[in-house]
């Protein structure tokens, strides 16, 4: 199947290996710069090489990192909690519309399809969220935003459709209710798919900043990504979040450039390091969706 030609393999592998540098170096630059002495950075610029090691940036971040801790809390809450909630209700719905017995399912399926084609748009959604449901500066908005995806529901439906009817029929004969059939038999069976799409949802939620951008102005409710982009854009924000008086001696001493990147590493690092480990399940799940959907 594969070309066993040694020269060709060598060229191919060298090329691919070099190309992977393109994907690794950007991260290295950020990490290295955060670990470099500030004055060195100001002389030589950002670089993947640590010319002079310094953990000062991290010292500042850990001493004054209330913002980041707060944001971690908020983000973790709605990323994990929200995703779990989302997928449970979507799996429930996907399961029910997969059942032949459910003769009213057209009432569910057609509206769902409609939401895939037309959407209200930013302004109407914003008005409804804030005026009707009072979600401005409200932590609940993180749960509401992006909770239901018709596409995912149809993936679940496709999965449950190919579970043999005999399974649920025999459970019925044993006197199980539909909810029991779902929770005791169907949901456990769907665990690979459920886990895959939960993971995808988790990643999306964890990486999102738009919800905060549109609806939140309360600093205590910032998400990690939103906090990060504030740090990047506004140097003043760093000084404020360090609760130092601008213009004071201490403020002038903050290693501004390296602190930016140190905060980036602390805020984004852990998840970026963890996500790839689940990558293999991710791609399998995507394939299931592609084949069945």
């Amino acid at each position, binding site marked *: 199947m594969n070309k066993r030609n040694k020269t060709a393999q060598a060229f191919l592998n060298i090329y691919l290996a070099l190309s992977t540098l*393109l*994907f690794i170096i950007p991260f290295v630059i950020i990490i290295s710069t955060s670990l470099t002495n500030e004055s060195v950075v100001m002389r030589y610029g*950002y670089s993947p090489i640590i010319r002079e090691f310094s953990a000062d940036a991290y010292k500042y971040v850990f001493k004054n990192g209330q913002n980041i801790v707060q944001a971690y809390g908020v983000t973790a809450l709605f990323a994990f909690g929200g995703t779990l909630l989302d997928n449970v209700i979507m799996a429930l*719905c996907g*399961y029910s519309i997969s059942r032949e017995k459910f003769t009213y399912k057209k009432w569910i399926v057609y509206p769902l399809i409609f*939401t895939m*084609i037309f959407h209200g748009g930013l302004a109407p959604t914003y008005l409804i969220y804030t005026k009707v449901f009072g979600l401005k500066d409200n932590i609940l908005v993180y749960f509401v935003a992006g909770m239901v995806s018709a596409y995912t529901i149809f993936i679940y439906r496709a999965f449950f459709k190919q579970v043999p009817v005999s399974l649920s029929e025999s459970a019925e004969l044993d006197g199980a209710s539909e909810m029991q059939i779902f929770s005791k038999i169907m949901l456990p069976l769907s665990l690979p798919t459920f886990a895959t799409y939960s993971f995808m949802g988790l990643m999306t939620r964890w990486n999102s900043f738009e919800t905060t951008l549109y609806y939140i102005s309360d600093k205590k409710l910032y998400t990690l990504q939103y906090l990060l982009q504030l740090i990047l854009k506004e140097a003043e924000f760093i000084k404020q979040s360090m609760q130092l008086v601008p213009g004071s001696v201490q403020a002038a001493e903050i290693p501004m450039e390296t602190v930016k990147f140190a905060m980036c590493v602390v805020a*984004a690092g852990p998840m970026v390091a963890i996500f790839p480990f689940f990558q293999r399940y991710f791609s399998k799940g995507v394939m299931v969706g592609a084949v069945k959907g």
Partner: protein
Amino acid sequence: MKQTGIKKKSTFNQNLPFLIMCLPVMFYVICFKFLPLFGMVVSFKDYNYIDGIWGSPWVGLKHFEFFFSSNDVYHILGNTVGYFFLFYIVKTICSIAVAFMFYFVASNKALKYYQTVYTLPNFISWVLVAYIAFTLFSSEYGMMNTIIEAFGGEGISWYSEPKYWPVILLFFHVWQAVGMNCIIYYAALMGIDESLIEAAKLDGANLRQIIWHIMIPTITPIISILAILAVGSIMTAGFGLFYQVPMDSAALYPTTDVIDTYIYRTLVSGNMGQTSAVGMFQSLVGGFLLLTVNGIVKKISPDNAVF
């Protein structure tokens, strides 16, 4: 699915558990997806905070006229559609090329390494991409300028020069997407029956012929399905990339402003009517294209249609 026996129509009681199961989703859909559709009426009104959605005065198509007669509309629509084609074509070509390269790698270990690294950018947010871009393009300390100045050139103020950004944005888009995107092509290639290739080799086919006559035809249906699915999003350039990476620099708007960022800025300025009108335009074009293309595909080969 063949059903033996008489097909009974379920009673209401039999349907009830399922209806209850769908309740959370339907409640959400009604409140947060359908209700905003009614809110779209704001596109035709001069919304103000005091009168609310229903009380604000009716202005008909004023917002649409304003948008289409403004100077911005050319670069906004031009960028949105332009980036759509640019991104899609380049991304597809690169994904296919990478899929082929992965296919021919002999060592499983090496392949795993390449695949993991290539999909890395898929897990990071656009904010992180903005950081990465910043390390490269910052005027004072960015690596690009460091390298340019090392060669004796003059540093460029990247965040104020629009002309470089189509390439920059293209690079980051492909960088982010190629890892995940090539999987589907790679899977298709892996799915080719080995005996087919063996038979072709026995018949004297060289590599180029195998690629052209076996592998490419395997991939072609996938390319067309994905392309069809993508058409509906021609008006949706995506907010993350275009808002974060150029750091919302106004100087770059001529080449980085797309319909999504324009809608956002209009929202922030408080003009709900205008925001809603442009959003409605975006939604209608997308929906219309999706249905049209789907309809055409249905006529030609029904299996490939989405709806």
